[in-house]
């Protein structure tokens, strides 16, 4: 089995949408952590991580979720609900993961954990909102807690 994998999701050009990528960047700067965990930033393309996910016991996905209270953090051990829409250009991150798990037997035993930070806008800009920026240390700590859990 390969080490646990942490995937940061979101577009850093779209403000708070990039919160997951920002948290992954903080974690990547921790050399001790980087020795025992693999960390990647996948922007908005979960399918591009297919090779990375294989033969892992756990994969943690850090992402932004729309909601009322920006900066609040939640952990889902089941995939977030699919939005049921057929989009023009892309699949949503949960839909991409569901698709991969459906057709990849080597992912069936992998535990997927979503660590989500709530945002209420994703507007163009390379800065996080003050509420979400303030939540990044908590988000990072939540990821570390999950990684410590055996």
């Amino acid at each position, binding site marked *: 089995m390969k080490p646990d994998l942490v995937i940061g999701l979101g577009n850093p050009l779209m403000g708070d949408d990039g919160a997951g990528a920002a948290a992954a960047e903080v974690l990547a700067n921790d050399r001790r952590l980087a020795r025992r965990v693999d960390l990647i930033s996948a922007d908005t393309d979960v399918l591009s991580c297919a090779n990375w996910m294989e033969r892992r016991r756990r994969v943690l996905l850090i992402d932004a979720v729309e909601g009322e209270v920006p900066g609040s953090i939640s952990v889902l051990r089941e995939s977030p609900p699919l939005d049921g829409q057929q989009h023009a250009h*892309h699949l949503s991150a949960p839909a991409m993961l569901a698709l991969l798990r459906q057709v990849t037997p080597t992912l069936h035993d992998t535990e997927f954990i979503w660590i989500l930070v709530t945002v209420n806008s994703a507007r163009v800009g390379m800065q996080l909102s003050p509420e979400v920026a303030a939540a990044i240390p908590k988000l990072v700590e939540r990821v570390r807690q999950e990684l410590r859990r055996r």
Partner: protein
Amino acid sequence: MSTIVIDHLARVEGHGGITVELEGDAVKNVRFDVFEGARLLEGLVRGRRYDEIAPVLSRICAICSSAHCLTSLKATENAFAVEVSPQTEILRELLLRGESIESHALHLFFLAVPDYLDRPSAIAVAAEHPAAVMLGLRLKKLGNLIQETIGGRAIHPVNAVPGGFGKVPGVDQLIAVRGALIEAMPDAEAMLDLIASLPAADFCHSDTCFAALHSPNSDRYYAGDELMVVSNGDRAIVPAASYRSLTNEKAIPHSHAKHSTFRGKPFMVGSLARLTVNPKRLTERSATAPERLKLSIPSDNPMDNNKAQAVELVNDLGLALDMVERLIHDGVKDEGCVPVTPRAGTGVGVTEAPRGLLVHSYTYDEQGCVVSADVITPTAMNAASLEQHLRKTVEQSPDRDQAALKKKLQMIARAYDPCISCSVHLIRK
């Protein structure tokens, strides 16, 4: 008056929709709306140094990140009169070919095929046809592998820099890519069989004007400085530096993406346009693919863009293999980058992104910092043509059943393979 509304076409980053207003049986109005808020992407690079621009703008879209990166570099090098080496040109061409393989596989298998099979999503297709979805995933992975090998990462390439490549791929890496491409050849055949087996989508016909990078004797995504527009057999050349005569953007009330027309006519960019503008771009290996898919060029059916993507996918695989073999044979030199000396001026870069022409243009000051920037995406260029085809779809439908019309309208929109987020292109201040 009745109205048909399709609210969402895009994912969370932005959303677009379609509105059709009918008065009795007559179509009063058809709109392709982009509701997304101001993106002001160009504003993100104003004041930044030339070597920071491509890494920022490659993030406009995860699917087209290599195209945005290389178009940005092309514009910057054009502004500073930098001529890159032939090796750099080949590596950049190969990088874009990898992106096209990845993007076409994603679009065809996970967005278009569910429409043809009347399934709500790729997940539903996977339940009944897992082999087809696996095929799409394998082809997409191959595109990612090419990009990772040449660009250093599967998305947002880091090796391509102003003047060349900071790091070039090793022979072992290229041999691995060659192996993967050879293994993928049966997949290309299976993909053609699958696309050929789909039900016909024959509900919209219209004279269409096409625009693409002009490459008369070869198949190019990266190299080239001329655009060609084809309309009813007439061909017009537009130099890249005069791209505004082609894009000629016009703000419209219902969309944040401005509409482009050429001599007053909407035009289509993308796979179908590339095959129409450059009919000789297919290699011997892929020459029979259009016939297998019953694709005639020029086509008046926008749904044929899906077939054209399938043809390009086969062509891209063969040409990528040729390019990799050539690189292995000749050896890839660690030649370093051509020195870049910033100067005041404007540069334009035009390439073929997977979904069509992509333009970046920057004006720099003497220190090499961006004074103004202009990014025009294929989806922005396609917006007027898409609206025209949405109207034709409704006008040519024999009945006014809302569910059936909605499905056709969504299929037309998806056939354009739009990236609605990155089509947003606001008036510059």
